[in-house]
């Protein structure tokens, strides 16, 4: 491997690189990105006259060095907007001015794309190079920069993002988080003035996503980069300087995070989430009369934005008026004592006996009772996928036993039976659709398991209802549907087999908040039917809804316990690279404020527990 510079030397030189080089041709007054009343429509193939409107009169301004977040549901036009900025698309009407260049001016095309780097959602589909360093060099090569200079920039960028030991490795050897860092390195090597992130962290686990954002924030400071972030992750957007919320191709409203999130009704109307503490407050306020809320406005005129402000406001509100308890259905699901899944002493090593051997699972043992919901959590590479692949015999144990409903995966005959009873849905299940019609695709599973024609029809119709699709969708091709609809068809595919156990691997990944809520609803529906659910996730909000949580850390089970016990064990969580659900964090803050112990792991739970506590205290005082 060639390393012509010492690391320290390179880092020293890095201090100098930035706008002295990259944006010297840009006059200071031009250092902004401006979208002015832009509209854009995608032509419909085959029909010249019709088109699908993606953007309508969108105006956006981003000054040099600012961090702008663009929020909105899937299909609200966010990605199209990003493509306008680096001239991948040209607006039908209106103007896009990037650092003084109009994107419709073809002669400025390469200059615009060089100054505005873009990180896309899928880490794999943006890597061109066969090796890591070749990929970083791709941009500068296209710009016709001399070899020696490219080498210099590649080495700089590699070190800056911390991938130097992977320089000559194949990109496929990197993790998702490292691939996104590679994308950043490729952009840095072009000396950018702006980085556009198009849902760049939506396919990463929380720890990698956090690392990625830390890097982005550092680079923003170092090179005073403009960051344009497209996302539906609220927790990140709150760190932006300015937020635009999009709905159906238009800017629905905009403002600083404080301005935006102090109008919770509008945020929710756009189909977005609130930060958990604000959502808890929102639920809490619902229990009070309008009159009381008006009084609160007078007595507490400040914004309600930070967790501290929120807790204060909640405290004040309780002093003003008595909450009216709204009945919340807190269904307790019953699980029987029958053990339905039993995993004993399971170990698995990939490429066993070679020098590439990797221990994926080590002495894993656990049991699941019928009707229970268990969440399997752990960061990427902790062995989650290997574990669930064992549950339906996709992988036969090297050592140990897997028994599902008293069937053993060591028996080839049993595996087929197991797959009939245990529905396994992998990540991004919409990628497994293949039949001509939605009906045939949903019916694929039941057909393979030998269900009769009439049962299949009944099950398919039921499944379509459960996932909330219209019945007439049955005869359409699954490939004409939107991503969210495809996900629902794929889910209906396992539901139609009417299994006893459902194993769901990140079922809500990549969906917007409303889509995620729908998935939660399906899971709750399954629980009502007394099905056993195993949920693999790194979203702690989702995991908090389970009965028990199984924590995997480097192939070992480090905890298998109730939600309360797992989330109260800080050391365990940190070890496994996991975080406490944000609702639980806020619950501790209000516990202090109201000087009593309020717990809860979901927003609903916390607000319910608080209200329950307040009403019982009132009764006691009376």
């Amino acid at each position, binding site marked *: 491997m060639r390393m012509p510079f010492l690391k320290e030397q390179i880092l020293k030189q890095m201090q100098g690189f930035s706008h002295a080089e990259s944006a010297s041709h840009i006059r200071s007054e031009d250092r902004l990105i401006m979208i002015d009343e832009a509209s854009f429509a995608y032509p419909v193939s085959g029909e010249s006259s019709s088109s699908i409107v993606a953007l309508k009169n969108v105006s956006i301004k981003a000054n040099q060095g600012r961090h702008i977040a663009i929020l909105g549901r899937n299909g609200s036009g966010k990605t199209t907007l990003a493509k306008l900025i680096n001239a991948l698309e040209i607006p039908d009407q209106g103007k896009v001015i990037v650092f003084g260049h109009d994107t419709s001016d073809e002669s400025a095309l390469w200059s615009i794309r060089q100054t505005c780097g873009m990180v*896309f959602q899928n880490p794999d589909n943006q*890597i061109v190079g066969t090796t890591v360093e070749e990929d970083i060099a*791709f941009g500068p*090569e*296209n710009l016709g920069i001399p*070899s020696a200079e490219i080498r210099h920039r590649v080495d700089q960028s590699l070190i800056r993002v911390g991938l130097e030991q992977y320089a000559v490795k194949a990109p*496929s050897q990197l993790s998702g988080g490292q691939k996104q860092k590679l994308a950043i390195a490729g952009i840095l090597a072009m000396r950018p003035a702006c980085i556009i992130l198009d849902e760049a962290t939506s396919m990463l686990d929380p720890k990698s996503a956090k690392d990625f954002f830390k890097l982005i924030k550092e680079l923003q400071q170092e090179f005073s980069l403009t960051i344009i972030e497209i996302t539906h992750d609220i927790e990140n957007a709150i760190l932006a300087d300015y937020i635009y919320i999009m709905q159906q191709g238009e800017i629905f409203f905009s403002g600083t995070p404080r301005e935006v999130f102090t109008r919770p009704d509008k945020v929710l109307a756009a189909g977005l989430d609130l930060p958990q503490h604000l959502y808890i407050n929102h639920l809490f306020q619902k229990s009070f009369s309008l009159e009381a809320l008006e009084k609160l406005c007078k007595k507490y005129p400040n914004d309600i934005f930070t967790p501290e402000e929120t807790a204060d406001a909640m405290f004040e509100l309780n002093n003003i008026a008595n909450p009216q308890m709204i009945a919340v259905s807190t269904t307790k699901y019953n699980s029987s004592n029958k053990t339905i899944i039993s995993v004993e002493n399971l170990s698995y090593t990939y490429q066993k006996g070679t020098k590439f051997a990797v221990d994926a699972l080590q002495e894993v043992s656990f049991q699941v009772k019928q009707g229970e919901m268990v969440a399997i959590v752990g960061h990427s590479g902790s062995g989650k996928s290997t574990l669930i692949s064992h549950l339906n015999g996709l992988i036969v144990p090297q050592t140990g036993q897997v028994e599902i409903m008293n069937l053993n995966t060591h028996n080839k005959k049993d595996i087929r039976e197991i797959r009939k009873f245990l529905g396994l849905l992998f990540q991004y299940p919409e990628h497994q659709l293949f039949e001509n019609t939605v009906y045939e695709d949903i019916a*694929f599973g039941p057909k393979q398991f030998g269900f009769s024609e009439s049962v299949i029809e009944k099950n398919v119709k039921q499944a379509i209802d459960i996932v909330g699709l219209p019945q007439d969708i049955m005869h359409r091709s699954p490939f004409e549907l939107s991503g969210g609809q495809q996900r629902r068809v794929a889910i209906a595919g396992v539901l139609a*087999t009417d299994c006893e156990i459902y194993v769901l691997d990140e079922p809500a990944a990549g969906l917007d908040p409303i889509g995620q809520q729908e998935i939660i609803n399906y899971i709750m529906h399954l629980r009502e039917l007394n099905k056993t659910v195993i949920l693999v996730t790194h979203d702690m909000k989702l995991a908090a809804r389970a009965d028990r949580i199984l924590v995997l850390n480097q192939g070992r089970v480090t905890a298998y316990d109730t939600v309360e016990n797992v989330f109260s064990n800080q050391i365990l969580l940190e070890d496994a690279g996991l975080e406490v659900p944000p609702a639980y964090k806020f619950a501790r803050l209000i516990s202090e404020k109201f000087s009593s112990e309020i717990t809860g792991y979901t927003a609903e739970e916390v607000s319910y527990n608080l209200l329950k506590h307040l009403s019982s205290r009132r009764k006691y005082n009376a």
Partner: protein
Amino acid sequence: MHDRLLLGKYYPGKSILHRLDPRTKFILLILLMVTLLIPKTVFPILLLLVGSACLIIISKIPLQEILSSLRSILFILVFAFLINLFSGKGTLLLDLGVLKIRQDGLLNAVLMSIRLILLVLDTTLFLTLTTTPLQLSHALENLLKPLSAIRFPAHEIAMMMSIALRFVPTLLEETDKIMKAQSSRGANYDTGGFLKKAKGYISIIVPLFISCFRRADELANAMEARCYHGGAGRTKLNELRYTSLDLFFSIIFIICCAIILFAHYQMSNLI
């Protein structure tokens, strides 16, 4: 495993053969092939055998690694040997009724086999064992560049090769994922007749194709966003560069080939 895929059968090393410019190896290999195909007599072929042995020695690659490449041509080798063995004229050596082995036949069969073996050995030695696929695609692009004057898409072909190389592991992983997903839905790829199996594979191939198109679309966007606009005006991180090693090696190599060809003509004149 990923390394294997990326590097093919590349055997890492720092020998003279490894350090040669891939273009030099390409051109010299063509010369070597011509030299291998012309002679049909014992002496020049013996010289070729010695020459190839020298190449193997300077490559510093273990013999068994090199010989393993012969496995794939074993069938052709045996077939060619037998065809030659049972044809030809000269003294009768062995009579098996319909099949007769004669002196010329035996000699031809042996010489033919040696030439075939050398052809395969030298090609693997030059192109796959000491050159990475990436270097190869760079060399091809570079050598074919003059042809772009007649609109031969040299850059595009090289770019396609390297993207294909890049996506092989990704698509393998994806195939595995889809197979697991469909197996979970009850698809069975092990049992049933040929037709049933073939039909079963549709459930893998269709999603794989769709994913390929989606990837291609996104990759095209990502490439454009990084200023890709074809081969014109493009530079390279690792520019190919001829060194004095290429010059010296080429001279010696050409002289050796010339001697072998000269020996061949001398021998055929004698006869």
